[in-house]
Structure formats: structure tokens, C-alpha cells
């Protein structure tokens, strides 16, 4: 296949490569933006359907792809291109894992304020493509709010950029917004530039257990407090049981601010992250609904209400209510991925020369 993509590693797919039960024919492992473009161009010319993949942590979400001829595995496009600490900006390639990125940034006392699930495997590209926010999006916004520049490859192989590497920039359309949350349906995210925040000097959680009726007004009071929590989260595993409410404060004065929140909510102040905090147990999420913060008082029988939009993303400014029911899937965890290139990841399965042509 794809003989003219001679410089790109391509191998035959194996059963572990299946996307939600749909087995691709080939797996392409580009290492540069140009190689991504070469693969997409070649596929477009042959009418081959492409599914882009990062760490594979959310690849099976949603319905299976209608077609998948080529799995475009971006694990080898994994360079952190520039961390301009003085500018609070980082530019990274799509295949960089969120943990690797966090490690680099933390060395200079900074962070990308997105607390995404599965950061060990989740990648920059996949994080953007799925736009799944974590609890702290309440204060910092979601991926689209922290993304300031993007390089994408369109299905025809065109490489396009928008935004840049400065936070303040209104030149041209913001393609980053369109690609964030597009689940790979508009093209492939190849590189991204984010605005960063200083790592908070300290963190405190205020954790309190409440009756259901108390939860909504207390959550609202916490969320609007001038102690400025970074997140307010609810855990309610048993619909007949109590509700646990937790608020996070971050900063040098976290202890004093947490004290102010405890005045509102009761409970205790801790340095320990609650075990359920921001956790999506692998595949146990049944559904997510978005509602306005004041809707948090609705009982489970009225939720979701008709007209409330449901999506695989949770609300940017509300709480996420997770029901206890699980819907286990069979294929967790996904195979670990990576390549044995100079940037130090290890591919799974080991890289092989494509048996039908190409490869090196």
C-alpha cells in the first residue's frame, strides 16, 4: 500500500489495533508533521479512511468508526518543541503525553492547567481532540481556552496553522477552537501551543458530606466565594446516600482560603486529594450531562431533563454528577504504545517494516 509514503513506517494492523471492534488494515507511524501530511495525502488519493490516534485512552468512545483503513498512530510525533518559560508558553507535538509535558513544565515551576484523566497515556493531540475537561476547568477554562496556536493537517494533506505563540492574538480565524473537541473528524492535530500557569505554591481541599437537599446551595456558595476555589466537585455514588462535596483552593495562601470555605461548607481541610477527585474510573462513565450551576439541585429522577444537552464532554462551569452504575468494557487497558526512537518511547507492537511496502 502507500508505496510513495516510503519514508513513513507502516505496518499491518494486528487485532490489538482494532478501534471499537473495527480492525484497520494498516497502522502508519509518522514521525514528523510532513510525514503526517504524506500519509493523509496518500490515503485521500486512494479513498482510504483514516482514524488518528494518540495514547488510545479514549479511542473507543462513541460509536465505532464507519470505516477505518489506516490507523494513524501519532505516538512518534512526540517532541516538546519549545518551552518559553518567560513567556508562559509551550509548543508541543501531538504525540507528547500529558505526563511528559507536565514533567518538563514542572522543572521550571509551571503547568498546563488541564487535569485530564489518564495523563500517563493521554496525549496533547488526543486531549485537544476529545476536549475532556477536568475539575479545574472551573477556574482555568477548558482546553480551548488554554490553546493559543495549532498546526493541523487536513484530510487532503494540507498543513495549516492558526493562532501563534503569543497569548494575545486576534489575527485570522481561530482554527484551534474548531479542532478542539472535533474527535479527529476535521483533520489531524499535529502541534499545539498552550498558555501556561505557574504551579500553585500550595493546594488544599475542603471536603464535606451533606444531605442531598443541602448540597446545591452549599455548592453554589462555594463556587461564588471570594476565596476563589479552582474547582467544586460532587461525588454521589449512591443515589439514596449522602453527597460528598469538595472544593479545591490553590495558591500561597491556600490554607487561609480553605478556612474561609470551611466556614461556608463545614467539613475538613486536607492536603490530600479526595480519592474520587476528577476520577473517571476507566470506562465506568455511563453518561455525562451538562447543566447550569443552579441546576445542580435537581434530583436524579429529573436528570437529565429534556432539553439539557448531553455529550461526551462535561460542563465548563458546573459540577459533574457521576452515577454509581458502571458499564464495563472488555478491552481495558488499551495496549501501551510508543516507539524506540531517540525520544525514548517504546512502540507496541515493536516497529516493523510494513509487509506490503514502505517502511524503512
Amino acid at each position, binding site marked *: 500500500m502507500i508505496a510513495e509514503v516510503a519514508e513513513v513506517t507502516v505496518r499491518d494492523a494486528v487485532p490489538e489495533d482494532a478501534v471499537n471492534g473495527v480492525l484497520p488494515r494498516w497502522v502508519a507511524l509518522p514521525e514528523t508533521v510532513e510525514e503526517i501530511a504524506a500519509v493523509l495525502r496518500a490515503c*485521500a488519493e486512494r479513498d482510504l479512511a483514516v482514524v488518528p490516534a494518540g495514547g488510545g485512552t479514549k479511542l473507543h468512545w462513541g460509536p465505532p468508526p464507519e470505516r477505518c483503513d489506516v490507523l494513524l498512530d501519532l505516538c512518534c510525533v512526540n517532541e516538546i518543541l519549545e518551552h*518559553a518559560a*518567560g*513567556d*508562559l*508558553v509551550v509548543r508541543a507535538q501531538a504525540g507528547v503525553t500529558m505526563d511528559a509535558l507536565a514533567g518538563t513544565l514542572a522543572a521550571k*515551576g509551571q503547568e498546563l492547567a488541564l487535569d485530564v484523566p489518564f495523563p500517563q497515556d493521554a496525549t496533547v493531540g488526543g486531549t485537544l481532540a476529545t476536549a475532556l475537561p477536568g475539575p479545574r476547568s472551573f477556574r482555568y*477554562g477548558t482546553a*480551548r*481556552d488554554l490553546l493559543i496556536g495549532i498546526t*493541523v493537517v*487536513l484530510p*487532503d494533506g*494540507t*498543513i*495549516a*496553522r*492558526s493562532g*501563534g*505563540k*503569543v*497569548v*494575545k*492574538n*486576534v*489575527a*485570522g*480565524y*481561530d*482554527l484551534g*477552537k*474548531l479542532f*478542539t*473537541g*472535533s474527535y479527529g473528524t*476535521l483533520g489531524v492535530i499535529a502541534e499545539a501551543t498552550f498558555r501556561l*500557569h*505557574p504551579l500553585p505554591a500550595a493546594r488544599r481541599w475542603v471536603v464535606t458530606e451533606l444531605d442531598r437537599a443541602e448540597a446545591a446551595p452549599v455548592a*453554589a456558595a462555594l463556587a*461564588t*466565594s*471570594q*476565596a*476563589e476555589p479552582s474547582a467544586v466537585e460532587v461525588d454521589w455514588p449512591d443515589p439514596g446516600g449522602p453527597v460528598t462535596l469538595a472544593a479545591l483552593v490553590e*495558591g*500561597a*495562601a491556600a490554607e*487561609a*482560603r480553605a478556612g*474561609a470555605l470551611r466556614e461556608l461548607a463545614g467539613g475538613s481541610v486536607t492536603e490530600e486529594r479526595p480519592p474520587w477527585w476528577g476520577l473517571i474510573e476507566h470506562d465506568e462513565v455511563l453518561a455525562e450531562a451538562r447543566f*447550569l*450551576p*443552579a441546576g445542580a439541585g435537581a434530583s436524579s429522577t429529573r436528570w437529565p431533563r429534556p432539553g439539557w*444537552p*448531553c*455529550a*461526551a*464532554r462535561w460542563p*465548563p*462551569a458546573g459540577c459533574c454528577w457521576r452515577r454509581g452504575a458502571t458499564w464495563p468494557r472488555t478491552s481495558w487497558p488499551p495496549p501501551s504504545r510508543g516507539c524506540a526512537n531517540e525520544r525514548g518511547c517504546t512502540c507496541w507492537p515493536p516497529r516493523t517494516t510494513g509487509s506490503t511496502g514502505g517502511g524503512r
Partner: protein
Amino acid sequence: MMDTLVAALRSVLPADSVITDPVRLRTYECDGLTYHRATPGVVVLPGTAEQVAQVVRLCNEHGVPFVARGSGTGLSGGALPREDGVLIVTSKMRAVLEIDLANRRAVVEPGVTNLAITEAVRDQGYYYAPDPSSQQVCSIGGNVAENSGGAHCLKYGFTVNHVEACEIVTPDGDLVTLDRMDPGYDLLGAFIGSEGTLGIATKITVRLSRAPEAVTTVLAAFESIEQGGQAVSAIIGAGIVPAAIEMMDALAIEAAEAAVACSYPEGAGAVLIVELDGPAAEVELQFARLRQICANAFELRVAADAAERAAIWKGRKSAFAAVGRISPAYIVQDGVVPRTSLPAVLAAIDRLSAEHGIRVANVFHAGDGNLHPLVLFDDEEPGAGERAEVVSGAILDLCVEHGGSITGEHGVGVDKARYMPKMFSADDLDTMQLVRCAFDPRGLANPGKVFPTPRLCGEVPGVRKGVHPLVESGKAEQF
């Protein structure tokens, strides 16, 4: 064509909402960028979203372009009318429709001014965060079109980070709602900042922010701009994200002093305004650190109350208009560089200034590298305007060279469309054009803005395949 359109407009709008009188039309011939002017073919003042939709549908039926305008304070000519088109002015749509503090949001019509939103909720302890300098008059609809920022966007972000939903009239006249909470593509994010080329916002749901517990505003005077710049780097390096960090150079201070007698410290080579806000305990710690960082400032003033805070901001907020006191004419530029490039870029601006004999006053949002050089010239002096243009354009070149942007908050509009190819490749622009054509296939929504070469959507870029035959045969080169 225009006559039949005007008759049709009169059939759907009240009589006083359709303006054709040439004298009255002239009121609308430019926005805040006054050196681009055009008399609109007709001006309409719709009072409802449905009327906006009807106007746009009529424009479609007649194949006539339309331009939306809010308060007309834009600085890039985004609301420059078309002589062959309709100017849709939202000034009659000024209702605050709903304030929902429980959900921290307000729903407003596009003609509502930015500041009016804050004024409606201030007593309850809330505010609308983006604060462009023109906030007393600029409209929220215009803010959405331009993705406006303001002095405090260093910490709080731009319009796009504070708008939850927009009802818009699409370029073919449909009334639809784009909501951040909707599943699917983030069309709201793409719409905001599209400068009226993807439709017209008719109802806007904004996020309201809780007023901070404490605000500390500091004015630090330094002997030189370099010292001020070092302080900015040290603040960021200390992990502090102030609400705002603004800097003015000696010439800008001189102008502000002449205009509003802001009494900034005498002899300052640069003043820095730093505003810290947030929980009181946090602000107190940050302020202590800030004092250490600004140890080499020769004067440090701390506002004790709201009146003193206003006094500190007075000079900065009046800076643009103030240069009128020291120069007969001036160009307000808007460019962005990475913050760490500020010293190099300011030095290069100095060189440009000396080389062309054109004075440049620098006022900028130092925290995010957003420069607003004021290029001063005497329009009576032959050739001075041209030289000022050269300097102004060269400053944008500097911004692009340093990896920045040709506009941080004023927009591309008609003014900077020609600079877009300096920042973006043909493929980048073609891809943006695909978005344009998805919304506006007939190219009727604010044509001629943002993009340098307006294309018809029939000519939408195909895939570039291989080398152009002319290049291959050696008859042409691509740059």
C-alpha cells in the same frame, strides 16, 4: 438593485429604521479608524433579531453585501461600510434581557455597552471581566465580533473566554444559537473574533465573574524602560499572575501629563502599573513580593482606595487620546511580541524612530507583550504621513519576526488584511477561507475584511498538488 432592496427593507422595518438621507448616512462612514471612509448604500437600525434576519435574507435575495456595526469604536475598520451594501447598526438593540446570578450569566442584546453589563450587576458583587479601554461606549456585539480584550485579559482572558452563547443571524439569514454547552464543533469559538464575516450576533449570553475580595493597584516609576521590563520579567518569574501589568514610556507619560495631569512621578523613564486582585490573603503575599521586586523603582505608589486607583489608571486610560496634545496626528498601532522579546523589540522601535525622524510613544500591556506604539507625525509636513506609515508597518514586521502577531486586540479589519500573508502561509489562509465559505458561501458578510484576497467560494482552494507548471518550467518562482 439598491432601490428595490431599499423598498423591500422599508416593507419589513419601521420607517425610521431605514436611512437613505445622504447627510445622515455620513454619520456612519467610518468607525474608530477614521482614515478609511465609505458612505454606506443604506443604513438600517433593526430593533429585533428577527428584523436583523429579515434584512440579511433580503440582502441575500438581492445579492447585496452587508456590514454589521455596533458603537463604531473599532480601530481596524472592521465596521467600514460598503457603498454598494447595507450597514446593519445594532444601536436600537440595547436591552439587558436577563440577569441570572445563580448561574452567573447575563443575556443581553448586541447594542448593550460593555460597561452597562458590569453596572447592572456591580451592586450584587459581580462584573463582566473583559474591559477594553472603550468600555463605556463600545457594544458587546462589537466585542464578540472582535474578541476584545482589555487591560485585565492577562489574567482573565478575552471575550471568547467569557461568552457562553450567542444567538446569531447566519450570512444566509437563519437565526441560530451557538452554545458552549452544545455537543459538536465549537462553532461559538470560531464565531467570536470573526469580525462580522461569519454572521451577526443578535443575543449574547455572557459569563459574570465574582468581584475579587481585594484589589491592590501599584504605580512604580523607573529610570528607564529596561528597568521596568526587568521588573515585569521578575514578576512573571516569581509565579505571580497580576490582573494587569501596563507600561508607559517617557513620551507617553509626557502626553498623558499634558492631557489629564495624571501627576505621574517626575523624571520617570517608564512607569509600570501593576494590579493584583483575588482573595485578600493571596493579594497580600503577592504584594509583599512585588515590593521586593520593585526595589529599584525610584517611586512606588499604592492606591489606598478606589479614587486613588482611578487616579493611577487615569493616565494610562487616556494615553491614546492624550498624544493629540503633543502631536498633530498619530497612528495607533497594535502588535504583539512574546514578552521576553520586549526589550529587543523596543530597542528596534527606537532605531526605526531615529532612522525615519518619527517619534514613537510606547504604551503597552507589558504582561502579555501587547504593544500599542503611538506613531506621531505632523500631517501638515509633506511626506511625514508616509514616513509614519512606514514606521508603523515596520513595527508589525518586527512583531512577526519575533514570533508575535499583527494584532492583539484591535482586529485585522480592513486595515491589516494586507499584513495577513506575513503571518500566515497561503495554506493557512486557504484553510481559514474554507471556514468562511462554510458559513458564507456567497461572500456577503462583511466582504473585504480580514483576508487579503477575497475569493469567491467557487474558487475555494483546491488541493495544491505538486509544483505549479509555471514554476516547473522555470517561468515563475514562488516566494
